[in-house]
């Protein structure tokens, strides 16, 4: 399988949020009017104008305390369930770039039922503009990538947490790093690497970072097309539970 892939090594992420800001800058997306809600995570969640958010989670206490960071974004599934769900409703509302594998939401997404599209996503990524009903998410900076540049978030990452390139090279890098990390972190996971083009390597159990960092094994996910169809057909609520 060819195309592009991100490898995100969470053991190197310092939550500097350079990626979050770079995403907004490249896309020229407006800032949200935020408040401090008792957390540094801001905006509190992804939105139509916030395609990438660095999630921060505090786990445990005192000597086994961990502060976990997750630069959350669309995983660009190899076989995207959102597209499967959309294709039968509005053709080409969600496209997939043949060369890069980027999954792209078009203006036509305004004709799709939002709950179906969001529900189809095992990672809870799609968001909708309440005014226009157009849906949005990360598009892999496909404009940059097609022009030979790195996605804005990868370009700005100072620590080597965000990596991007040809899929086989990224998977090789990911597996090598995973093998090394397992020596010190036996619960490290290379999350859903066969199914997605944004491969996260965790230091700890994925659920500790965020409920939808990893697709639920027994729910809607990119695992099979059947599972994706199940989601469209109504199992999504349990999946999100």
């Amino acid at each position: 399988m060819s195309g592009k892939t991100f490898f995100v090594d969470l053991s190197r992420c310092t939550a500097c949020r350079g990626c979050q800001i770079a995403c907004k800058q490249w896309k020229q997306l407006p800032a949200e009017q935020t408040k401090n809600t008792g957390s540094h995570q801001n905006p509190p969640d992804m939105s139509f104008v916030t395609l990438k958010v660095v999630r921060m989670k505090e786990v445990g206490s005192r000597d086994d305390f961990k502060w976990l960071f997750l630069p959350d974004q669309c995983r660009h599934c190899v076989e995207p369930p959102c597209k499967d769900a959309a294709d039968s409703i509005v053709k080409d509302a969600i496209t997939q770039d043949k060369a890069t594998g980027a999954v792209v939401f078009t203006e036509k997404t305004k004709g799709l039922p939002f709950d179906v599209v969001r529900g189809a996503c095992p990672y809870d990524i799609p968001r909708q503009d309440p005014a226009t009903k157009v849906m949005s998410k990360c598009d892999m900076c496909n404009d940059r990538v097609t022009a030979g540049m790195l996605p804005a978030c990868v370009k700005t990452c100072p620590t080597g947490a965000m990596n991007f390139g040809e899929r086989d090279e990224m998977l090789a890098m990911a597996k090598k790093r995973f093998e090394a990390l397992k020596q010190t972190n036996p619960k490290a996971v290379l999350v859903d690497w066969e199914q997605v083009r944004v491969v996260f390597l965790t230091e700890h159990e994925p659920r500790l970072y965020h409920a939808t960092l990893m697709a639920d094994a027994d729910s809607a996910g990119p695992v099979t097309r059947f599972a994706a169809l199940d989601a469209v057909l109504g199992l999504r609520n349990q999946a999100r539970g």
Partner: protein
Amino acid sequence: MTNHWIDLKNSDCIFVIGSNPAENHPISFKWIMRAKDAGGKLICVDPRFTKTAGKADFYAPIRSGSDIAFFGGFISYILANDLMFKDYVVNYTNASFIVGDAYDFKDGMFSGYNAEKKAYDKSKWAFAKDEAGIVKKDPSLQNPRCVYQLMKKHYERYTLKAVSDITGCAQDKLEQCYKLYGATGAPEKTGTMLYAMGQTQHTVGVQNIRAMSIIQLLLGNIGVAGGGINALRGEANVQGSTDQGLLFHILPGYVPTPAASMQELKTYNEKNTPVSKDPKSINWWGNRPKYLASYLKAIYPKQKPEDAYKWLPKVEDGKDYSWLTLFDEMYKGAFKGFFAWGQNPAASTANCGKVREAMTKLDWMVTVNIFDTETASFWKGPGMDPKKIKTEVFFLPCCVSIEKEGSISNSGRWMQWRYPGPAPLGGTKPDGDLIYELFEKIKGLYAKDKKAVFPDPIVNLNWDIATNHVFDPHKVAKLINGYFLSEKTIGDKTYKAGDPVPSFALLQDDGSTCSGNWIYAGSYTDKNMAARRDKTQTPMQEKIGLYPGWTWCWPVNRRIIYNRASVDPQGKPYQPTKPVIEWQDGKWVGDVPDGPWPPMADEKGKYAFIMTTEGFAQLYGPGRNDGPFPEHYEPMECPIPEHPFSKVLNNPTALKFTGNREGHASCDPRFPFICSTYRVTEHWQTGVMTRWTPWLLEAEPQMFVEMSPELAALRGIKGGDKCTVESARGSLWAIAIVTERMRPMQVMGQTVHMVGIPWHFGWVYPKDGGDSANLLTASVGDPNTGIPETKAFMVNVKKA
């Protein structure tokens, strides 16, 4: 930095204390991660669990303001367990020096204290010298009056128990930490210490850094790759501005400012030129007269240095002109006018409520910035009645850094040339043009006015810094480098007038050379060295990522200073896998060595630390105002009435002020919690640039106060609640962040809570962002630098 950013990757152990590089120096983590990839360890010691702590192999919390106790325990541990790199310590540090009889230390006080002046007579701390005037030494380190033995005795009091009691850090944690980093004392290992304002902004700030230096020297970690004592600078060009003489006590290139008692250049040179009688000591500052003469010729090219010297402003002997003192004088009405150039003191200065009031005493203020600030608009700020304020404020908008050409010098001392990006918006000008035009006008007024007072220094000042009336950074850079003013033959080479000075070694004291800043001599010679972007390295340089062709580094493109200490007395690197320099076939290879002389064991060899008078690094430092050894004193505001090391609670020489704006509250039940200020990645300094950048404000929109779940429970506060934080000087609101990253500590048998606040916010913008943390901080400072103690002071927190 003694080293540089890339060099962090060479470290076996990175010790972060008083800084939070993951948050505040994000790029540093590129190199820290590479050190970890190669098996290096990362230690983080900080009162709160920071983003850096989150990536650390080992984290230990200590109470803010207890660093010297922590380090003192560390020094004691190194000496007791013999972890030091003995050859290095004997060869390169003053451990073997015999201290004179007048030095003494009793119950928290060094000898020579004058209670009336609140100052020490430092002559009491001098070394013992032989008949030839050379310091007496005992390389066996057995003499009870040698530095090593005095140091051992001094720090014996810092037992694990006492240090644990005062820092709040468990004894086993302390021991693990000391052991882990102490392992870098092995000759082939190196460790680096990274610090920032968490170390400096204390009334013992300088001694905090001294304590770290002592540890680094004992472990043989100075001058080596992956080692050093590394200040992570808080602004892109703060290193450069310090180099260029921003502070009151120095001229460019760390040449002391003349004092009123030194009316003649000859007197100045006598008092400021150290002399060594030891032929093996280079005593580089013995060249100081050449650097001052060349500086004087840079600013007054037509005058003889001795005449130009008379025009230099002189400071009153012993008088402090540092930041807090300036604003104290302003508060007392001493100034008519004030230029706030690229700064925001109404938010950035400790006890800034006092500063805001001080500004009402001015007749005029000029402020130069890219956005409105709390300083520019102080007259309409909270509690101000514009009708009653006489100060006339002028706002000069300037262009931003990326719109102009020039250089910045980063933490690693690299002078990096930058080309202009987009054209300045809205007709704004670079600061260089603003100051050029301003002084042209002043010069003209003085030249015209027959009654002008003392016009010579002004009308004669070299103002050839523009081309066609536009500020020319190349002209300034060439002047800073320096050039010959008349024909001069040095050795077998003759230089013509106008030839650039190739290096500071060629600067003269006879007026034949000029150089605006001797340490930058060599930066702009036949070409602009700072503009270089050459990645070529020799295989030896490649081992440590030296990149000597990338930009230019002061001094003389030396990337790791004190590098003569990275080799043994025969010139062989102590760390063969990461050599900095090596003596091969009668010459040095690798980095630019600290001087061309052969290795120390050679008969023509010289001592390694060429910038000290005696040639040795100073474990014992008799030049500081508060003692030759760091000693623990509590912050001026502290939660405990006594500590285990002496009966002297606070630094007896700290900079203090009196008056009705100087509230103070130690062990005061009204202000029971320790508070510290810090930064977040998204904002910079007082937030003047970043608060107006919507994407950054979106990520960190409001003033917050971080506290432990225990303290939140005590005060009935929940995360997201609006709280009031108040000190003896002021009050502000902040949103509570309740987090396990903060924890109560057991200090001297009592539970001590700590809170933390960022200092990025201000009332001007955004409207619901909150105000400056410095409304709460105290105007008390370090006795050497005057830096304010904003990292440890006492507050109360309650639900608003």
